Each structure stands twice: as C-alpha cells, then as structure tokens.
C-alpha cells in the first residue's frame, strides 16, 4: 500500500500482506512519495522553493515548471487522520479557539503545525515560500490560507476560480482565470523563484500530464467490467494520489499510471477483482456509486464494511475533485494558460448541484450500478450542502434507491462505526429485497435525519 493512503492491520501483518499483495505500481507510488518527502526535507539546503496549495485546481505543472515543490495541506490532514493523529491535532486547534463546527481538515492542519509540523515520514515539513491559494470549489480554502498567512511570514497569491453555476464555462470565466495567472500568479511565482517562467518546461509538463490522464481514465473505465477489477472509491483514493498531488506532469506519473493500467487490465483479463484490506475481494454482489469523501480515521473499517458485504464501488465523485478527466478534459500543451484555467474550472466541486446530479446519474447508468451511497461528511459544506436533494433527484431519475451515511473526514469523534454499518447493511438489504422483487422502490427522502453527534455510534 502507498504511503499516501496507508491501510493495514497491525504493522507486522500489514508488512506481510504488502509483501504478498503489492503490485509493482504500488511499490512505485511508495517510492515516489518517499522521494518527494525527502526532497521536501532537503528543500531549504537544496535551495528549492516550497509552495503550499490545494488539491482542487492545483497548478502542479506550473509549480513543476519553476522547479518548486508542492505541499498539499489537505493531504497532510488526511494522512494525519489515517495515522491516528488527527484527533489530537483537532483538539489542539480547538484549544486555540477554533470552533468544533468548522472543517476538520483546517483544524487538523493547524494542530499539526502547532505540534511541530511533522510530515508523514516523521521529518518536519519545510515552511512555505509561497501560499498559492487556488480558490477552487471551496470557500474554506480562503480562510485556511488566511490562517496560515498569520503563521508564516511568506507571500500569498490568490487564484480565484469562478464557479460553474450554470453548468458552463463562459469565455469571461476562462479569461478571468487566465488573466489572474498572467497578472498575479505567475509574477508572484517568478518573484519567489527568482527566475522567469520557462514556458517550454511548462509545455513539457502539460504534455506529460495528458498522458497520465489518458491512463487514469482507462483505469476508471475498467470498472465497467464484471467483476470490476478496481474499487473506484476505497481503491480509487490510492490511484488518484500521484495525479492529485505532486506528480502530475512528471515522468514518474506517466510510469505509475501506465503500470497501473497494465495491472488493472491484467486483473480484468483474469476476471479478478480489486485488493481490499483483507486481501483479494470475493464475490461482487453489489455494484455501487459513491458520492462524497471517505472517512480517513477509520478508513479500513469503512472499506471492510463494504467489502464484507460484497459491495464494490464502480465509480465515485470524490476521486474527481482533482480533475474530471473522464468528462474528456486533458491538459493541452498548445494553450498552456488556457488549459490550466480549464482544469481549475472543471474540478468536481466546482460543478453546480444539477451538474453533479447529471454526473452521478451518468455513473449509475454507465457503470450499471445497483445503487448509490452518499457519505456526507460533517466538515465539508462544499460537498454536503444539498446532498439530500441530490439523493432524491437521483432516485427519481434512475429509479434506484440511495443510501445515506454520515461521518467526517478526520475528526474521529464523528465516526460511529455501528451506526454506519447498520445503515449500510439496511441499505443493502433493501437492494436485496428489491432485486428479489420483495419490496417497492423507495422514492421518498428519509423524513427525519439522524443527528450526527460527537461519539455517535
């Protein structure tokens, strides 16, 4: 398993399982990530500049073209969640006056910062030379970097990406992003880097991105096979690691995604399913589409709840927050700044609720899903506000009932294992009854929603 998303049993059992199950792509990803953190640890002595930025709308190619190193605070937060540290970090931020109501990624990151800012490899993360506020699909990003700005003495540059409220990118929206790149973002990066942008290098990065993007789309589409050779949610979060974070545009990313594609093709040809925390997946009874981010603090438990019931996820929206490549988008080296704008504008959380409903409907149909589950996280208004209507709308359009689960990203207080398991099982029982023609389709929303409370079980 990768460092980016580590799942496992006890460390020894995990090592044994890894030795047995590891695909070559996983080994590669692990090495890539460990190399990246080594570079970050040496950044100051090597004279490399460090840019903190966000996953949706990230400008990895531009950062790469300047030879800078990205740090993605969301990924630090999710790693802290998986490593069992987020609870303490969040508590630290709340002791410092942050409300329990707000996004736990922000508090986790802040708590980590106040606790020495140790990265996943245990070495301190370097301070940023630039905060690149890629303001795409989430208003909380702005608050997050305002808070970080007060902690670090470094410049901030904002890239405001307008929201696709009408389901379309207009010329004005695109021009607005391109002009910000020209007038604000690139000049700020040039000042920090102490050199001009190397346009040839940017073009080379974008060319490589498109190749990696081709490969990941093939990986996603492999889930149309029966059995699916991938789990597009729990397994999918491993697959998006390199392309969402620091590697899109690199040779490493191409090598990783082409290797992954071959492995997935091999599994499909052999009629094999994906790996789960407990080994290869058995019978695939249920094909599901999932909307919303996963819970990270009990990621394995969460995954097992699905795998144990024979539920494989064939498509998910969370794995599209860093780019909707299966909608046809590819970075286009012929128009370097325009393509960066298109990329930022097209991330999943920058799509309107009706467009999100369209995408989910498409996934349910194209991947021949038996059902869909929404994991609504307390932290994230960007994802969560409107999800109940999304569920109702999808039920109406597809005739397929939806399941609704509530948890959080990295706040362990909001993962009620028994409650979530019960809900999932009841949902699958409903699908079972429907499959056997025993129950009418459910078409109405649950009237009273359970209150998600700390410690809910």
């Amino acid at each position, binding site marked *: 398993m990768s460092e980016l998303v580590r799942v496992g049993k006890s460390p020894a059992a995990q090592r044994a399982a890894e030795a047995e199950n590891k695909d070559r792509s996983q080994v590669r990803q692990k090495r890539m990530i460990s190399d990246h953190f080594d570079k970050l640890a040496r950044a100051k002595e090597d004279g490399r500049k460090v840019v903190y930025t966000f996953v949706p709308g990230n400008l990895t190619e531009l950062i790469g073209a300047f030879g800078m190193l990205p740090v993605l605070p969301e990924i630090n937060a999710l790693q802290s969640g998986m490593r069992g540290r987020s609870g303490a970090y969040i508590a630290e931020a709340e002791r410092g006056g942050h409300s329990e109501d*707000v996004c736990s990624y922000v508090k986790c990151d802040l708590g980590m910062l106040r606790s020495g800012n140790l990265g996943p490899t245990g070495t301190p993360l370097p301070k940023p030379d630039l905060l690149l506020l890629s303001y795409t699909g989430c208003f909380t990003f702005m*608050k997050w970097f305002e808070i970080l700005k007060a902690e670090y003495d470094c410049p901030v540059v904002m890239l405001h990406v307008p929201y696709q409220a009408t389901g379309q990118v207009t010329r004005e929206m695109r021009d607005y992003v391109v002009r910000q790149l020209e007038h604000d973002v690139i000049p700020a990066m040039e000042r920090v880097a102490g050199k001009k942008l190397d346009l040839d290098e940017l073009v080379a990065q974008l060319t490589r991105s498109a190749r990696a993007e081709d490969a990941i789309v093939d990986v996603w589409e492999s889930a149309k096979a029966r059995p699916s050779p991938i789990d597009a949610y729990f397994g999918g979060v491993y697959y998006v690691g390199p392309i969402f974070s620091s590697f899109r545009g690199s040779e490493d990313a191409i090598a990783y995604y082409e290797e992954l594609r071959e492995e997935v093709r091999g599994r499909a040809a052999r009629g094999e399913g994906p790996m789960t925390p407990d080994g290869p997946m058995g019978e695939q009874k249920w094909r599901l589409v999932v909307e919303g981010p996963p819970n990270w603090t009990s990621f394995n438990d969460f995954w097992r709840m699905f795998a144990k019931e024979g539920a494989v996820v064939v498509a998910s929206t969370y794995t599209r927050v860093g780019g909707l490549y299966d909608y046809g988008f590819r970075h286009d080296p012929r128009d370097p700044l325009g393509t960066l704008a298109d990329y930022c504008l097209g991330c999943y959380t920058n799509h309107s609720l009706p467009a999100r409903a369209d995408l989910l409907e498409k996934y349910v149909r194209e991947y021949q899903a038996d059902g869909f589950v929404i994991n609504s996280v307390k932290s994230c208004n960007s994802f969560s506000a409107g999800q109940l209507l999304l569920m109702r709308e999808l039920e109406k359009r597809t005739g397929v009932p939806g399941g609704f689960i509530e948890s959080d990203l990295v706040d362990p207080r909001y993962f009620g294992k028994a409650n979530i398991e019960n809900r999932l099982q009841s949902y699958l029982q409903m699908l079972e009854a429907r499959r056997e023609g025993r129950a009418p389709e459910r078409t109405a929303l*649950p009237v009273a929603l359970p209150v998600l409370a700390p410690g809910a079980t």
Partner: protein
Amino acid sequence: MKAPLAPAPRDADPARDVLRRAHALLEDHGLANAAAWKRDHPGRLAVGYMPVYAPRPLFEALGCLPVAVFGGGDRDVIRGDSYFQSYICHIPRSTLELGVSGALQGIDAMVFPAICDVIRNLSGMWQMLFPDVYAAYLDVPQNFRPEVGGAFYRAELERIASDLVARGALALDPERLRAAIVTENARRRALLALGDVRREEPWRCPASEAYAITRAGGALLAADHLALLGEYLAAIALRRGSPKDNVRVVLTGAFCEQPPFGLIKSLELAGCDIVDDDLQLGLTYIEGDIDAEAADPLGALVTAFLERGAATASRYIGDAHKGDALLARVRRARADGVVFAAASFCDPALLDEPMLEAAMDEAGVPYTSFKYAENTGQFHVIREQAGAFSDAVRLWESAP
C-alpha cells in the same frame, strides 16, 4: 382638505409609528410589500437576493424591486429541515421553507451572491426545486484589479441584467442606473447618519431599533428606505433622555444568517450599548459613494465594489492585516469591547473569528464570543454571558 391628525399622546415615543412600520416589513420578510408593489407595477419583477451584498442599484435601474431574503427568522421549519443535515447552518433551511411553502411565490427571480459553499449550493437546489423561477448565482471577484476581477464582475452583472431583461425587466439604461446610484448614495449617507447617532447618543437609538429600521430597507426601494430613515432620524431627535451607564460594544459576526431580534434585545438588557455592528452588512458594504458622475455608471458600480468593499469574512483581504478593519471600527465607535456572534456551523464567520480575536488580543480590546441560530429561542445564557462581559469591562476600565 385633510382631516387633522389626532395628536400623539404626550408620552408617546415619536418614533413609534415608523418603528411599527419597519417591524411590519420585517415580520413578513417584506413579501406583502413586494406583492403590493407588483400590483402597482404590473409586469415588473421582484428580485429576491440572499446575503450579503447584492448590486441593488442595478436591480432598481432594471425597474425591479430588490427584496433581501435573509432566511425565515424564527418561523417554524417543517420541510426545509428534510433537505439539510444537522450540521448545516439554519438559513438555507428556513429560506427553502419559504420557497417550498409558497411564501416566495411573488418573487420572480432569486440571486445567490458568492459568500460561501452553502449559499452556492443552495443556488443549485433552487434551480432543481423551482425550475420556473430564475435562480442566478452571482460570482463576485476576489481579484480586485480592474482589468482582471473588474472585467469579470462587469460580465457577471451584464449576464444577470440581460437574463432579467429577458424575463421582463426594463432594459439597462445608463441614466436610470445613474439615478439609482444617486439614491443609493443618499441612502448610504442616511445610514451613516444613523450610525453617528448610535455612536454619539446611543440612548437615543438602541441597536435593536437601528436594526429594524436598517433591515426594513431590504424590502424597499432605496428612495422609500431613505424616507423611512429620514422619518426615524427626525423622530429620535425629538426623544428626551440621558446617557446610560452601559458599556459600548461593537457587535460583529460577518452576518449572513441574522440573529433573532431577541438576541439583540438581550445584549441591550445585559447593559451593552451596541454602537456599531455588521448585521445588515450588504447595505453598507460599499464604503463611500459610488461615482454618480462617471460616464459609465455600470463601471462605477464595479469600481466601487473593487475599491471600497467592506472587509468581511467572504472577501479576500490580500496583504491587509486581519483584524485591522475591525479595530478601526472599534476605535471609531470608541467601543469598550467587541461581541463576536457567529451563526452555528458557519465556516466563514467561525474561521474568521479566532483571527479577529487574536487581533483584538494584540490591541488589548476585550471581547466575548458566542454562537446563535436565527431561530434561537432562549437568550438567558447569552444575556448572562453578555452581562458578565459588561461587568468585567467596567471593572477593567475602573482598575487603577
């Protein structure tokens, strides 16, 4: 000849009538007024908009009545709750309740300005639930260069204007826009005059009254609000009274979801003179006049937004120091302290608050903080907290 008005009773408050009218507007969210206006102006549009800032002069220039739809207050929410998880703030539920219950039937269009992910997603919900009503998301720039954010904002305004025209609004005419800007400037100056009274003679103008008189403007054309403000200012000038021994506070909360009226009263009863607040931020969001003489009045509206938008949680402040704007308000109001109030589950306000508190700590300004929801019904805890705060401030001030 008009019948002589019955003289007001000797002890009657001179502002009683104007306050009663303001409260009547608040109680039904201005909807009866909108219905009456539409009867008088057949074919014209009532344009609802959500917090915080909306370009009201543009709507007026298009012959529309802008109506601030700032939630349902403490009205019962029955169906709205079934659309939102427990950890989403209250304003989208009560607003949706107004929508699904048919209360907003007279509102022809809804505009959702970009302030947070909830309002943003609510714009999509509106499109899905009310396909016959024009629902526009108004993206406001976070880049304040004229050729960058300005060009984008202008295109946003033109897009919404042309969509409204296609639905029956009057064509966008520069002279009508100029006239709307002139009136808007006058209204803003009247609001400043109200602010002056609050700062200089808070006993004459309690915050709860200022709030009602200001918020009533959300349901009125600027000219009508200007008249209401004028009437109120004239009435309170007649009041007799004397200063109270209250502490002077600034109430701040990047208010989108509005606190219940009882909460403001509770703060007053706890011994606080609220000498400044950002409760109805949208009406004073543009700090200073919009250039009514400009050759291009739409450009003037854009420039005012870029150059003179108020520092609040939903606006990027670039290299400015967080808290400086609040501190300036505290100083201008000669306030003894700050009361932070944030809507529960409101990411923008709640994430802003610790930064603002840090700035107050640095400047030695005492503060207290609490959360509320628009339908909070019990105020004793808040009253006790505010009472303890005002006592502490007094003690602190009298310390040698």
